[in-house]
């Protein structure tokens, strides 16, 4: 009650107590909250991008024509920050090629194509670690790394890296993020309802791996059933050091930094990690995936996705193999004709519009929303001048001044933009959401961030080119000086005899500036003489 009042009158902007500053409360539209998770059939073809995570792209381990088993590793991570890819089912690799992936650019990435054989035979080489409590945490982390697990809340950062132990910053609290503050999305909600036990086991694995003393399951108060189920499951499992925390429903409650502030009252200092305030945050879906990987030996090959939006006849929560083409998934929910439909990959606040439909569902897909063209706000909005109402400042959870920031970004004053903390924007979209002038603020920030990165890169390249160009000039000058020095030396030592030879050499050098070798030869001649 009190936090809500605080929020209502913008007090949390002035004195952030407890919850994070700002935030909005969009209509929830959780139409699929009561639809049980349904398992979808196998599609005729699976498309597996070699990069579905933050970090380095993977290298394929299989060749075209090769038969693979379900769960077999088909692309291995390269570099440290990376996550390998596994075959979602048994079948034949039919191609390695560029294919469009879910990305706002509509561009392609190298993908592995697999044609399922329908038998779905598993690769049984990975044994479950059932007694994980007595296992070395390093081994558990390795298992998580080998299983290609990334943050399934949407950030897709390789999970094992977050679980590294740092002696200086021990993790005290593991937070299980079940806030699911995005409208429409219900996949985490359903996971908690239907797989409470697995989720909690996954959390226990994490807590064991990082040696955390206590755990918090964070759920927004718009999911009372999930709160009750999780409480029951915790009691049944006898985990006394884990508690369920009810959070006020407010977007972006599920943002990692915001969640940490709500739970611990502390902000993650700039440039630091949650680790530095003794916290590790994992999404509910990730916990389930960790459970599967450790306790069942199954790598990350499928996930739960919410299919919703006003263009979908039968909205549902579905459990899908990763790599399933999105049109196939939508067709299973009754949406066949994608003309005049707009697809959003993720939730309406932070999800991206997909310019292409023929893309696979990937590890980061927590929802696919299909809207009629007319009902998608972002298509209709007409930008008007900013009336400086300050609503955007009020709701910004990062404490920015979006209207000023957008002003600088629009005028390509990126230095001023950075003064206004451009890179602290988490692109949550609260500011655009409340703006009465319909200014696409987030779009401006994304544009500016891209431009800054581009300018930075160009500058680095220019510096490199300059260095190379200078090195070349120096080299040419040096060579010339050396040649001249050698020539005069030869002349001095063998003045009469080598006179003729030197002249020939000079002529030759003039002819085709390949001089160096030839001068060498002349020198030898001179030495002999």
């Amino acid at each position: 009650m009190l936090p809500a009042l605080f929020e209502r009158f913008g007090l949390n902007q002035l004195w952030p107590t407890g919850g994070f500053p700002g935030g909005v409360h969009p209509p929830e539209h959780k139409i699929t909250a009561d639809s049980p998770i349904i398992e979808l059939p196998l599609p005729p073809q699976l498309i597996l991008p070699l990069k579905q995570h933050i970090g380095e792209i993977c290298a394929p381990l299989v060749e075209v024509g090769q038969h693979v088993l379900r769960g077999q590793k088909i692309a291995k991570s390269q570099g440290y920050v990376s996550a390998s890819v596994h075959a979602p089912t048994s079948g034949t690799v039919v191609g390695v090629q560029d294919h469009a992936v879910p990305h706002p650019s509509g561009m392609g990435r190298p993908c592995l194509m697999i044609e399922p054989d329908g038998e779905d035979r598993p690769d049984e080489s990975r044994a479950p670690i059932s007694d994980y409590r007595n296992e070395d945490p390093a081994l558990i982390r390795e298992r998580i790394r080998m299983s290609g697990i990334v943050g399934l809340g949407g950030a897709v950062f390789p999970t094992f890296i977050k679980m590294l132990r740092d002696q200086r910053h021990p993790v005290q609290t593991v937070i299980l993020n079940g806030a699911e503050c995005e409208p429409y999305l219900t996949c985490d909600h359903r996971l908690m309802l239907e797989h409470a036990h697995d989720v909690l086991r996954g959390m226990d694995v994490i807590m064991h791996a990082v040696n955390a003393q206590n755990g918090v399951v964070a759920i927004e108060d718009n999911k009372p059933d999930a709160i009750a189920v999780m409480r029951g499951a915790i009691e049944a499992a006898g985990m006394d050091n884990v508690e369920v925390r009810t959070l006020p429903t407010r977007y972006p409650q599920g943002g990692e930094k915001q969640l940490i502030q709500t739970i611990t009252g502390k902000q993650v200092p700039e440039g630091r990690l949650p680790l530095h305030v003794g916290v590790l945050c994992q999404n509910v879906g990730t916990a389930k995936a960790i459970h599967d990987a450790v306790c069942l030996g199954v790598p990350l090959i499928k996930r739960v996705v919410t299919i919703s939006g006003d263009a979908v006849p039968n909205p549902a929560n579905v459990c899908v193999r990763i790599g399933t083409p999105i049109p196939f998934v939508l067709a299973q929910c009754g949406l066949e004709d994608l003309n005049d439909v707009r697809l959003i990959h993720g939730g309406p606040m932070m999800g991206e519009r997909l310019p292409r439909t023929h893309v696979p569902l990937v590890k980061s897909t927590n929802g696919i929303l299909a809207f009629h063209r007319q009902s998608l706000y972002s298509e209709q909005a007409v930008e008007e001048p900013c009336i400086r109402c300050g609503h955007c400042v009020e709701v910004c959870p990062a404490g920015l001044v979006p209207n000023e920031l957008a002003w600088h970004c629009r005028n390509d004053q990126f230095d001023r933009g950075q003064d206004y903390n451009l890179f602290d924007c988490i692109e949550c979209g609260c500011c655009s959401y409340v703006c009465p002038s319909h200014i696409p603020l987030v779009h401006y920030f994304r544009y500016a961030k891209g431009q800054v990165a581009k300018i930075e890169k160009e500058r680095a390249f220019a510096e490199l080119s300059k260095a190379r160009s200078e090195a070349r000039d120096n080299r040419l000058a040096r060579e010339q000086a050396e040649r001249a020095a050698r020539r005069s030396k030869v002349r001095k030592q063998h003045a009469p005899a080598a006179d003729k030879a030197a002249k020939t050499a000079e002529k030759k050098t003039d002819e085709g500036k390949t001089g160096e070798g030839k001068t060498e030869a002349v020198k030898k001649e001179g030495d002999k003489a």
Partner: protein
Amino acid sequence: MTLLISSPHAHGGDSIRANMLAVILALLPAAGVAVYLFGWLALFLIVLCMLACMATEWGCLKLMKRPTDRIGDGSAALTGLLLALTLPAAVPWWMALIGCVAAIVLAKQVYGGLGHNPFNPALAARVVLLISFPLHMTSWLMPMHAPMLIAIPPLNLYDFSTCWQLFWFGPEALGKGLDAITMASPLGHVKTEWSRGIGAIEALRNYDYSYLDAFLGREAGSLGETSALALLLGGIYLLARHTITWHIPLSFIATVYVLAALFNAVNPEHFAPPLFHVLAGGLVLGAFFMATDPVSSPVTPRGQLIFGIGCGILTWSIRTFGGYPEGVMFSILLMNCAVPLIDHYFRPRVYGK
């Protein structure tokens, strides 16, 4: 081809138009009180100003080849209404018209239109009028139903033809001078009495001042500023609707109150009591409807508090030490100048910094 659109794909449904209409709606009680007190004159002025502002805005947009449907955002109509509510009832039509043109052209469109004006257009226009027509702008018509007026028989402002003549041709058409039908406002009265060496308490006593009348609005003043009650109703509506935030009104009024209370405590005979300051003149109107004008006030919450405090200090100082009896308008305009600075130095705390 595609124009790519970034997230978010949802919107809260707020719009400029909705905001402007909300403010207009919130001003309706005050406008109603104006009509109750000043009869047809109030109605004439309000209608004239709203229409004139919209027409001027339309003309400007047309001249500058901007889309003229911008007129639909309601900002010009709001400026007109606000301007009308700050005018004394006895100004003739052409004066009001000049004010409207000044508001839209001088104070708004020359800066680039909606969103770019550094000053509140209605207030800027009022200053133009005050400087150009000081006598008319400080002569307050005797309102209807004001209890302290028994001495002089007031004009019947509910009579259409009387009002029409007054509005159209000025008081001379009624065979009277301006000073025969006008009186001093409480603030003006206190100021004159001070200059004669009489303290505020004494001055109020001989003015027959009552807090209740001031709260309900039964006193002399500009059309819309007299009734604190009606203005509060509108202000609360705006706060509840989240069109404005509490920062500016609260800090503005509280500052005036605290300053007045301090000085009144030191010398109760000379300085006017705090409640008088809050209810008098245009403070409530200014704090809820003028200082909160989004375009010309700071955007950050802390900045808004500073802005309100600054307005409060200036208002009280001008009322107490300045040459004009009323300081709300000048203080808001002065603080408007400081907005870029305030916005720059009072940004919110960035997460994690």
